[in-house]
């Protein structure tokens, strides 16, 4: 890198992109159709989420655009369907396609937000535990074990249930998104902490860390500038799967009525609100958002599997 520093910036960028296209990572991606497909679908989801207001024909948050008379219209391809509602309407008369677009936006936002929080907490704790070691390390890892054995969903259900019971449903619904990110984010920190810690322990032994210490770099600097970059590939692998898990957790909580309210639905609360209508034959209110949710999670899991195979990091087991 020091040799390159005199080169013009765009030249350096050019060599970097060249390096990427020659890498094992890119090569594996090029030959793996499943990975390409998953990536494409994931990009489509992100696109849908980002531009939901532009794509959606109706605004499901605007009560003026909703007519209760339009409720439970089947998808447009069935006999009783209506041309203007592609995927039909839900029990409140909202256009299902629009609601799904906004729901995907909410689900992805919570999933990614929660994972950012998990990663932040987990990486900090993992770095500290691994680098400082000793009693602090064993205490933190013991905490992680306890936290994991209680299971995220369990902790989230109890916490949110108590919160809702204490502060009432109305206040809860206002804060729902924030609370979901907070709870799922806090409950899953051990995943990152363990992996980062394991990588730190492995990296700590290596010569470059000694060298960094010998030339007098401060501990935080060594951790963030020298050790952390080397733990990136396990973090990337976990993050993919963790977003999938966070989305499932959010959907489950919403399904139990502990998540997003029906007025601002995520995919989970959409499925939940449609559930009772499957008995009267209105399967689409539940099934279509269900398929959208499963596809999203599946794609993330497959990408995670693929990344694990390609990057082959040593993940923490157990």
């Amino acid at each position, binding site marked *: 890198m020091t040799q390159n520093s005199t080169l013009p910036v765009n030249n350096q960028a050019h060599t970097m992109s060249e390096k990427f296209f020659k890498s094992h990572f890119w090569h594996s991606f090029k030959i793996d159709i499943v990975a390409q497909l998953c990536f494409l679908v994931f990009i489509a989801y992100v696109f849908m989420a980002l531009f939901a207001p532009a794509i959606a024909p109706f605004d499901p948050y605007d009560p003026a655009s909703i007519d209760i008379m339009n409720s439970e219209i089947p998808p447009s391809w069935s006999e009783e369907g209506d041309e203007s509602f592609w995927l039909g309407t839900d029990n409140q008369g909202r256009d299902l396609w629009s609601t799904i677009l906004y729901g995907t936006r909410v689900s992805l936002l919570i999933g990614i937000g929660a994972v950012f929080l998990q990663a932040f907490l987990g990486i900090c704790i993992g770095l500290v535990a691994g680098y400082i070691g000793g009693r602090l390390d064993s205490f933190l890892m013991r905490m992680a074990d306890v936290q994991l054995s209680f299971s995220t969903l369990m902790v989230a259900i109890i916490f949110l249930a108590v919160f809702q019971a204490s502060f009432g449903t109305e206040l809860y619904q206002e804060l729902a998104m924030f609370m979901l990110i907070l709870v799922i984010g806090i409950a899953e920190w051990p995943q990152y902490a363990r992996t980062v810690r394991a990588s730190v322990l492995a990296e700590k032994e290596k010569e470059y860390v000694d060298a960094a210490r010998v030339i007098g770099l401060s501990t935080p600097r060594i951790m963030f500038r020298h050790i952390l970059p080397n733990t990136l590939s396990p973090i990337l692998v976990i993050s993919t799967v963790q977003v999938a898990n966070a989305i499932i957790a959010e959907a489950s909580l919403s399904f*139990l009525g502990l998540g997003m309210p029906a007025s601002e639905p995520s995919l989970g609360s959409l499925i939940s609100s449609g559930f009772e209508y499957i008995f009267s034959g209105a399967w689409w209110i539940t099934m279509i958002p269900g398929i959208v949710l*499963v596809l999203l999670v599946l794609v993330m899991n497959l990408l995670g599997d693929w990344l694990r195979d390609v990057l082959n990091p040593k993940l923490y087991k*157990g």
Partner: protein
Amino acid sequence: MLAFLIKRLAQAIAVMFVISIISFSIQDNLGDPLRELVGQSVSEAERQALRDELGLNDPFITQYLRFAGKALQGDLGTSYFFKKPALEVILSKLSATLDLVFGATLIIISFSVPFGVYCALKPQNWFAKTIMGLSTIGISVPVFLTAIGLIYIFAIELGWAPAFGRGETGSFLGLWDSAFLTKDGLAHLVLPSITLASIMLPLFIRLIRSEMQEVLQSEYVRFAWAKGLFPNRIHYVHALKNTMLPVITVGGVQIGTMVAYTILTETVFQWPGMGFLFLEAVNRVDTPLIVAYLIVVGAIFIFVNTVVDIIYGLVNPTVKLIGNK
């Protein structure tokens, strides 16, 4: 043995302590006991007198100790809704939840081990690849969606199994009622059990497969080949036993997840178990019931962990629970 007991006891006390603190804070913050006792028509002075009498103005620690003392005697308060002791209400739903957990565990164990082992031994085989593909889909479908899908297909469209409820139960020696003992009960049990198993089964298949693949690469398995043993003996005695050690540990850790999923499953199927009751209690702000649920779950948690430790100790000779060393 002594060390094991002490470790277990310490863990039990720690878990119960945390749960009791949480429970107590809930009881302290949620719902004013006075409201339950006297209603709205009592003057402020009378309220204060009652508060003193009930000890509600005592310091936090005194109140907590009183709560803990009562809890130790099994008195967790009276359910606002059922007007019965909360613990009694919860325990009356225990058998339904256990039916479900037992059914799911049966499915998980009887499928995860053979499938996981098969996928580890023949990773290139089409059947193994199918199982692995299905398991990836399996972990991607949330429990409640599996439940809804099963209800839609098997209950609504095909009408093969009932969609909700527990059906008839039979009595086991007059001590215990279980849906396993009647035909109707079993029919009701099928879909919820499959649902509850659906998320754990793929997880365990994947876990057993990866652990076994690792064990198959180990030196002692190589040495077993060099000894000229029969392949079956190497796979099922040398490799499988070592594979199961981490699987047992992970299985113990999953109990929390299992409890969470019973709440989801019971909610969808309206299965009259503890999880369903808990969610109802949350919606009704029935504090004593919420507290009782947490404490019972904590007790189950400790119990399962102890059992898992004992099983682990029996399988793994390097861990001595009861022994001379």
